[in-house]
């Protein structure tokens, strides 16, 4: 039985696809050459952010399934679930008879992607690890799903917004020390290579956690030494309420950020999803870090 597996995979590939439909080869964002149908009919998204983009491109009619926590937009809640993006339920995916799966690098496990391909399902991988990557993802998905025009519209708008901020910042010499708190107990921030780091830089601030990569931990002692001028806290960090989070900072009145009342809480989903919404996060950061240029931040 085992020896017949490659042959079976081939049969499956032919059977699962809608007949012998025309195919094309594209290079995805993980530099892999992928053979996929010219016009995919049944697509399964393997990450909430991908689902969000597919809806933004107006191609949600192709989506037959997605992973858990795909709640944006609300219509996505109706889609069948195929497990979580770190533990995909291959069986459920197979049962939906997809002709294409959309995966995210550094999110979906590589061996799941390999498994799906072994079973004859092409997988297109996106890698939105920074703003440029997000733009690349939207462009790529636009091409894959036959939505090149909507994709261009979205990416142009994104570029324009980022450009506007860069221009207005252009002249400002000051780069305030910024600390972004993702988690409480222990305190976790976002270092080099994260969206948050990129947003802080683009918004004209200096990320105090940039010395480390990934998500480093900090103690209050280190924070006192670093003395941020601006503190931004993700809502629901560590499960605490807004009041509790703020109270945590206000215990240290010597901190510049506390003294000058530059303590802000923002909705975490503005900065942790690799989707166009990141631009909303960028604009929020810009207002928080440089209120003198962009205007007073919106209410916490």
């Amino acid at each position: 039985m085992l020896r017949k597996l490659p042959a079976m995979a081939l049969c499956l590939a032919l059977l699962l696809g809608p007949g012998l439909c025309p195919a094309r080869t594209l290079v995805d964002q993980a530099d892999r050459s992928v053979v996929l149908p010219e016009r995919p009919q049944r697509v399964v998204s393997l990450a909430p952010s991908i689902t969000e983009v597919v809806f933004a491109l107006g191609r949600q009619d192709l989506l037959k399934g997605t992973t858990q926590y795909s709640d944006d937009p609300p219509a996505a809640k109706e889609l069948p679930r195929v497990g979580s993006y770190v533990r995909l339920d291959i069986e459920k995916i197979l049962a939906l008879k997809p002709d294409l799966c959309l995966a995210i690098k550094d999110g979906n496990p590589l061996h799941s992607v390999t498994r799906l391909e072994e079973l004859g399902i092409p997988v297109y991988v996106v890698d939105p690890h920074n703003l440029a990557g997000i733009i690349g993802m939207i462009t790529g998905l636009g091409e894959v799903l036959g939505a090149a025009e909507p994709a261009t519209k979205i990416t142009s708008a994104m570029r324009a917004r980022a450009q506007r901020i860069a221009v207005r910042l252009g002249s400002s010499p000051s780069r305030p020390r910024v600390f972004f708190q993702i988690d409480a107990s222990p305190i976790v921030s976002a270092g080099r290579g994260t969206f948050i780091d990129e947003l802080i830089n683009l918004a004209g601030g200096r990320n105090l956690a940039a010395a480390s990569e990934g998500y480093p931990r900090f103690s209050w002692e280190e924070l006192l030494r670093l003395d941020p001028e601006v503190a931004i806290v993700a809502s629901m960090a560590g499960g605490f309420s807004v009041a509790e989070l703020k109270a945590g900072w206000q215990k240290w009145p010597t901190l510049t950020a506390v003294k000058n009342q530059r303590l802000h809480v923002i909705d975490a989903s503005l900065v942790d999803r690799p989707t166009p919404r990141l631009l909303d996060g960028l604009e929020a950061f810009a207002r928080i870090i440089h209120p003198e240029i962009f205007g007073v931040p919106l209410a916490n």
Partner: protein
Amino acid sequence: MGCPLRIETWPIGRRLLLALLVLGGLLALAILLGLSLGSSPIGFGEVLDILTGRGTPDPTALAIVRQIRLPRVVLAAVTGATLALGGLVFQALLRNPLAEPYILGVSGGSAIGAIVGMLAGLAPFPGVAGAAFTGSSLVLLLLLLLSGRGMLASRDALLLGGVMLNAFCGAVIMFLISLSSREEVRHILFWLMGDLSMFTPAQFPLLLAVLPSFLLILALARPMNLLLLGRDNAATLGVNVRLVNGLLLGATTLMVSLVVCQAGLIGFVGLVVPHVLRLLLGADHRLLAPASMLGGASYLILCDLLARSLPAQGEMPVGIVTALVGAPLFIFLLWRARR
């Protein structure tokens, strides 16, 4: 105290036949259930058709049963059989009812190897599996050195050495976990709790490698009975104690390491299955050895089925199910034994 039927008074041949029939039937049922149930239910009839190659089954069902569920059920069966048999052997070797297949450092060593492999970003197979196997081999080597030559004859030296090594490995594991990122920790935890989902058909040859151990242990079933009398008494009844101990130890640690490196640390199979069977069938290892293999295989297939069907959101590690089922069962057995 024993089964009300006093099966232990039946002649060995008849007991063997009964056990093989009943447990074999149970295994067949477990396999059928394991192949039919899951995220998308597939009827028994269709499963049988797929297995026997009759009719024209739906290609999706075919793929699901043959490519996803069948490898998983096979892994569960072989792992369950290995762990149960391993537990049986160690309970006889160490003359200790609390012995289970990880007691001599296999768990600590393979866990360290696996964690190091995962932190280094290796693929589950062969990278992490290979690292896990290396880890357990190194720890066993260490145990050999520590216990010295007395090890093959003295069970206390073995036990003490093994427990100590496991404790030390536990500390190293905690240290490695503290260094890991959140994502890595989640991966590690799944491995530590047992995870049958990573199996790919490419790993079948590795599973076959446990067969020689199975055969050797089955052949040594009668000497295992005699080992329960103690070293000297077994010797006067004709057992070459050092040789038998060495062979049993080697065969068991090899096969347990092989399944652990692919399935993670699944607990309570090696501890509970032999005890339940001993209660029902008597203590003769010529009966218990094949029975443990069949029983262990069925038990793990069914636990894995629960692990992937019960939770509303994706599956939970099978080690949790075996613990939740096995621990109360074990306590119940202990309680009955006291009466």
